[in-house]
């Protein structure tokens, strides 16, 4: 190239650095993105390979049913291609931190293989030190320096596995085979391993190695994940498998012999232990017997004491009574004495009375005899009187008879008598008065007294009478005189009679009195007798009393004795009680001793018995085991069985598939824009081309000028892009994976992938170069003169809109100009729309992928799978155990709803296509809608469970290329096949499923489904779930418990990284959009500089000029956005299908919000661009641009 021309080229760049830079950067961006994304897959694999190599990640792992021994290892080392075979111990254990239980995998430290990479702290040196999983340390909250305590989590002791159970954490590390966040599944705790702990090899007390780790030769140069590596590895694996059978047989023989002898020993031991136990029990039994005897004796003694106490009480009572009696006796005696005294007095008195009575009686007798005498006198008087009367009567009679004779006598007598009588009458009242007085003195004597008186009087009177007879005669005579005095006689007679009567009475009275006296005597005699008897009695009583008193004295003495006796008895009882207490104390002590003995025995015996039982069980198990012991198998596992190794590869491949589409699209946009820019540039320079051509420069040289410009931009840009992109983008993506998922990955290797780099550079150079050359060629075809003249600007043309005058007329000129312009520069229009649309589409794909990915977990586990947990039943267990477990599980507190499901892995076949899927047969299909939503993804129409045929998950149907109504072949576990019609294709994002009703299943297989899963819906909080999980896993019949939440979480974790990668896409697309817009605007302005200058000269204000340009830009942006939406949707669909992994279906739709966001981004970029352009518009030099003839 000529010097001048070279100068020109360089100046060309200087003159318009914006254009050069923008082309440069567009190409750089395109190349960076292209190589970056496309290199990521390789870089990821390189980095991993570097890491695997540096950590000596095992190539092969051999597991055996019976563990591995040194012999096995030796055998393995002999295998060709094995460079290192090391035995390794692993175990599962549980540790607790802040009340959380963690399941950890204990792994022995290995030096030459699976080397841990220390992240913090140091390697363990002492046996009680350990290295902990970096991830686990973060999660659990342990710190370096803490002590971590393990337990087995099963019913066996941790000491079976480890020689000690506590370790000090001295550092954290990562392991190459645990590169991601998953640590695998455990058979203990909640079933998920939370982390690993690396321990010194010596602390493991296991007999055999858990696994053999193998490094192989010949892979030094091969990249992990490469086919060469895999071939080499498989070759060695095959060789190992070839020796496996023989080694396994040998191992089996060993184990069997060992087991047999161990069992024998164990049985012997059990026998010994049992004998010991029996002895101890016998001893205890004797002791117990003794105590029982002692207790019985005590009880008897107590009874005796009780009796003694009772008799004591009785004795006391008796004594009390006796004392009372004595007291009473004494009182009685006293009373008796009193009585005796009284009776004595009475007797005295009685005697006195008797004496008195006798006296009285005597007096009375005297009186009586007096009275008798009196009476006798009286009676005699009376007799005399009567005789007198009679005589008188006779006298009277005589007198009367002799009356007349006598009357005279009588009268004479009467006269006498009368005189007598008068006398008498005169004496009589005196007598009478005397009598009366007498009568007053003594009642029994008045008559007598009278009589006596009268007697005396009569006697005197008789004398007198006699004396007076004469007189009487005279009186008789008087009487006679007083003839009528006869009645008086009569009356006297009557009175006499009365007197006689009275006498009679007196007689009676006297008799009576006599009798009375007699009686009184008798009475007195009686009384005397009585008194005598009383006295006698008294005497006897006194004697009695004396004897009583004596007796009482005796009793008192007796009582005193009794008291003494009681005292003695009491003493005896007290003594007895003391003795009893002592005995009891003794017994208590004995009992205590026994109890201690018993406790000791219980403790020891329980342990011993437990031990024995365990041992027995162990023996039984051992026996069973030994019986069941089969020739072990070796499991020869390559790296492709390491979960993180595989998932990492999948992630890398996903990036790879992303790289197949996205960057290409990206690159195309970049190339298109740079190509436009170059074309424009060449076209702009037609005058210069013409000049050069006129000057005689050859086409090649001229072309070279532009080509060199383009090449400078393309090569420079693409190299810069490749250099930056192949480092930055893989770094960002790996860092995203590395910090979030593959924590083990610490070194990111980002070598320049020459093929990608060359591809990017070549593509950039070619696209721009060819475009430049094409443009130059087009120009060069013209004659120099034509070229020298200004290129007739694209002429204005009428546009379709002008044919609608109604609309057109209402537009002002700027609008008219804008609209015409849009159609005038068709190429620019197209480029802009494609450019903006492309960037919009790329951003939309980024956002859309995020949308598609982020909804997967929510859709699958929120909308489609309605159940909360899935419990898998161990079908190896007895049906009974399974049923019990099912009941336990479904009845668990917090479990609201449950459904049993038969899950089986099947292969679906349709024509050439084959696909694995999970076959689910719900026990009650009618309740299926409570657990899984069957619906069409697009129409959202929900389906019922198909009564005929099968429901097939969407992606599976797509892979098999079937739709509803087609027939597919199901190959069951056992190899049987059956044909079934697909009746529904249902929305599903994770895994592949085919659903059959039990009836259809039965028809197809002829079997009844074996329900090995339980889907449960539950309402539990975090802790309850944890408890539930623990309780379930503790059951033999429980194989695993998986909460859908945790599935969703881990899915989200994984997809989040993809999201982060999407940000790379979005940001790159945004950048691209920015540069594209700049470039297009820049072209737009340069192209129309004259026009804009004219406007300025015409006096358009800056704002008006800008508006003139912006209007176009804005319209173009909108059109570009609209185009981008359509491009984005189809690109998104395409990218999704590429990025998707087999097990997963991403959502197919882009959220409306993403459209809005992308449109807003595009508009924002456009606005920023316009702002930048405003400055450029302002700077347009009117003079220069108008003067230049182009």
């Amino acid at each position: 190239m000529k010097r001048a021309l070279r100068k020109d080229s360089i100046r060309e760049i200087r003159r318009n650095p914006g254009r050069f830079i923008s082309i440069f950067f567009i190409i750089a961006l395109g190349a960076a993105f292209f190589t970056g994304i496309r290199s990521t897959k390789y870089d990821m694999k390189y980095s991993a390979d570097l890491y695997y190599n540096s950590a000596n990640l095992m190539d092969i792992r051999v597991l055996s049913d019976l563990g591995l021994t040194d012999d096995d290892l030796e055998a393995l080392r002999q295998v060709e291609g094995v460079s290192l075979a090391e035995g390794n111990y692993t175990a599962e254990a549980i540790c607790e931190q802040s009340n959380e239980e963690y399941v950890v995998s204990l792994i022995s430290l290995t030096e030459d293989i699976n080397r841990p990479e220390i992240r913090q702290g140091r390697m363990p040196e002492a046996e009680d030190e350990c290295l902990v999983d970096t991830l686990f340390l973060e999660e659990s909250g342990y710190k370096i320096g803490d002590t971590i305590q393990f337990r087995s989590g099963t019913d066996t002791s941790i000491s079976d596995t480890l020689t000690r159970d506590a370790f000090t954490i001295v550092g954290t590390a990562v392991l190459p085979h645990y590169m991601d966040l998953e640590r695998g599944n455990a058979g203990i705790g909640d079933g998920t391993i939370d982390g690993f702990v690396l321990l010194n090899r010596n602390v493991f007390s296991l007999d055999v190695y858990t696994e053999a780790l193998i490094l192989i030769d010949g892979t030094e140069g091969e990249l992990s994940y490469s086919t060469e590596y895999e071939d080499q590895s498989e070759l060695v694996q095959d060789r190992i498998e070839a020796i496996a059978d023989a080694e396994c047989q040998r191992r089996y023989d060993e184990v069997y012999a060992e087991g047999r002898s161990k069992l024998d020993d164990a049985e012997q031991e059990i026998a010994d232990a049992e004998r010991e136990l029996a002895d101890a029990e016998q001893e205890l039994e004797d002791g117990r017997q003794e105590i029982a005897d002692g207790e019985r004796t005590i009880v008897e003694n107590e009874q005796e004491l009780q009796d003694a106490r009772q008799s004591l009480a009785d004795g006391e009572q008796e004594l009390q009574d006796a004392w009372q009696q004595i007291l009473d006796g004494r009182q009685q005696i006293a009373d008796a004495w009193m009585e005796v005294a009284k009776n004595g007095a009475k007797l005295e008195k009685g005697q006195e009375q008797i004496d008195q009575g006798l006296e009285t009686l005597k007096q009375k007798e005297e009186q009586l005899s007096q009275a008798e005498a009196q009476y006798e006198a009286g009676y005699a008087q009376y007799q005399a009187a009567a005789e007198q009367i009679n005589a008188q009567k006779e006298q009277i009679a005589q007198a009367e008879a002799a009356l007349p004779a006598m009357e005279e006598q009588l009268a004479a007598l009467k006269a006498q008598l009368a005189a007598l009588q008068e006398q008498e009458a005169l004496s009589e009242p005196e007598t009478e008065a005397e009598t009366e007085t007498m009568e007053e003195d003594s009642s029994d004597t008045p008559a007598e007294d009278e009589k006596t008186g009268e007697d005396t009087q009569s006697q005197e009177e008789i004398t007198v009478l006699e004396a007076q007879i004469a007189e009487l005669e005279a009186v008789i005579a008087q009487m006679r005189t007083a003839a009528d005095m006869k009645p008086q006689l009569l009356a006297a007679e009557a009175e006499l009679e009365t007197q006689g009567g009275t006498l009679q009475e007196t007689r009676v009275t006297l008799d009576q009195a006599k009798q009375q006296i007699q009686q009184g005597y008798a009475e007195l005699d009686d009384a005397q007798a009585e008194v005598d008897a009383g006295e006698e009695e008294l005497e006897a009583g006194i004697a009695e009393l004396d004897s009583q008193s004596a007796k009482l004295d005796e009793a008192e003495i007796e009582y005193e004795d009794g008291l003494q006796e009681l005292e003695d008895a009491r003493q005896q009882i007290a003594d007895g009680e003391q003795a009893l207490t002592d005995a009891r104390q003794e017994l208590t002590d004995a009992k205590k001793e026994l109890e201690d003995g018993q406790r000791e025995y219980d403790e020891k015996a329980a342990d011993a018995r437990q031990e024995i039982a365990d041992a027995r069980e162990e023996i039984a198990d051992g026996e069973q085991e030994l019986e069941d012991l089969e020739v072990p198998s070796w499991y020869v596992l390559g790296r492709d069985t390491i979960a993180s190794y595989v998932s990492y590869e999948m992630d890398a491949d996903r990036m790879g598939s992303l790289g197949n589409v996205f960057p290409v699209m990206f690159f195309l946009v970049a190339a298109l824009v740079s190509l436009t820019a170059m074309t424009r540039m060449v076209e702009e320079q037609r005058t210069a081309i013409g000049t050069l051509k006129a000057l005689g420069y050859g086409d090649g040289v001229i072309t070279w000028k532009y080509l060199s410009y383009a090449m400078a931009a393309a090569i420079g840009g693409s190299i810069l892009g490749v250099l930056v992109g192949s480092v930055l983008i893989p770094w960002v993506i790996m860092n995203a994976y590395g910090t979030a998922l593959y924590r083990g990955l610490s070194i990111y290797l980002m070598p320049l992938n020459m093929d990608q780099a060359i591809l990017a550079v070549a593509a950039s150079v070619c696209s721009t170069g060819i475009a430049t050359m094409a443009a130059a060629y087009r120009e060069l075809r013209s004659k120099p003169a034509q070229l020298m003249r200004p290129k007739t600007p694209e002429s204005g043309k009428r546009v379709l809109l002008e044919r609608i005058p109604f609309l057109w007329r209402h537009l002002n000129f700027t609008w008219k100009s804008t609209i015409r312009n849009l159609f005038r520069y068709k190429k620019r229009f197209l480029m802009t729309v494609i450019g903006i649309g492309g960037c919009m589409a790329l951003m939309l794909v980024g956002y859309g992928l995020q949308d598609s990915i982020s909804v997967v977990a929510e859709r699958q586990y929120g909308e489609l799978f309605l159940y909360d947990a899935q419990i898998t039943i161990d079908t190896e267990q007895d049906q009974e155990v399974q049923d019990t477990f099912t009941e336990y599980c479904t009845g668990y507190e917090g479990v609201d709803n449950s459904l049993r499901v038969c899950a089986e892995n099947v292969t679906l076949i349709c024509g050439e296509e084959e696909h694995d899927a999970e076959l689910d047969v719900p026990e009650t299909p009618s309740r299926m809608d409570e657990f899984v939503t069957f619906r069409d993804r697009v129409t959202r129409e929900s389906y019922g469970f198909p009564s005929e045929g099968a429901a097939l998950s969407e992606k599976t149907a797509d892979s098999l290329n079937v739709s509803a109504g087609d027939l597919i072949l199901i190959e069951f576990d056992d190899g049987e096949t059956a044909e079934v019609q697909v009746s529904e294709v249902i929305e599903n994002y994770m895994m592949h499923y085919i659903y059959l009703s039990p009836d259809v299943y039965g028809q197809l297989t002829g079997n009844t489904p074996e329900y090995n899963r339980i889907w449960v819906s539950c309402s539990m909080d975090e802790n309850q779930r944890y408890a539930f999980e623990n309780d379930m896993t503790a059951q033999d019949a429980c194989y695993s418990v998986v909460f859908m939440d945790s599935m969703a979480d881990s899915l989200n974790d994984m997809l989040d990284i993809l999201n982060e990668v999407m940000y790379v896409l979005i940001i790159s697309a945004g950048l691209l959009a920015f540069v594209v817009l700049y470039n297009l605007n820049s072209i737009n302005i340069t192209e129309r500089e004259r026009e804009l200058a004219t406007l300025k000269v015409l006096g358009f204000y800056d704002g008006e000029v800008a508006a003139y340009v912006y209007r176009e830009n804005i319209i173009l942006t909108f059109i570009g956005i609209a185009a981008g939406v359509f491009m984005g949707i189809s690109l998104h669909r395409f990218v999704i299908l590429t990025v998707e992994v087999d097990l997963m279906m991403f959502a197919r739709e882009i959220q409306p919000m993403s459209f809005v966001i992308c449109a807003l981004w595009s508009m924002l970029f456009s606005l920023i661009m316009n702002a930048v352009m405003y400055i450029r518009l302002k700077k347009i030099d009117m003079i220069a641009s108008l003067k230049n003839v182009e």
Partner: protein
Amino acid sequence: MSYVELKDVTKVYQMGEVQIKACDGISFQIEKGEFAVIVGPSGAGKTTVLNILGGMDTATTGTVTVDGQDVSTFRGRDLIRYRREDIGFVFQFYNLMQNLTALENVELALQICKNPLDAKEVLKEVGLESRMKNFPAQLSGGEQQRVAIARALAKNPRLLLCDEPTGALDYVTGKAILKLLHDTCRTRNMTVIVITHNTAITPMADRVIHIHSGKVKSMKQNEHPQPIEQIEW
């Protein structure tokens, strides 16, 4: 005071380390309604003067007065407003908006003016009545220049500045354009300033200003300007 008056106008361009004096103390006056021609060889500073006068550029020193306004003090928006309202430009290369028709090009200028003339009238005046609806690409150079003149005239400016208006045209067309300009000056009493390197046309001017090397070499007034038809070159 004259309608247009330049006094000691200098313009210095700083090109890297080199200072170029495009104008070096230019002074002249033009009266209203005059047809003035500024002549001088290439690079004499004619265009610079015109640009300063037209508000497309500013003088480094000196004053420019147009109709009493001191234009040299104008900057930014004032300058644009001055261009917009007071100046009509005619360029050598017409500078028409390619996507607007002749009429629309005129109207484009009109929509920013205060007292515009009727676009169709003006086009009729410049003899393009029948080509009004044509796009610039469909017009000949002379016709395009007529549209440019029409666009400038229609703004009804105080000054009509023409920078080599015939530079890109053939002899006959050039003459016709000059005649159009002259006629406009006469009929509308428009002050017209034409820049040209062609001294042959000076006889038709009312005032001729010779510029050489950034200075006014001479300024003379033609008492009796010759009609353009009589001038040959």
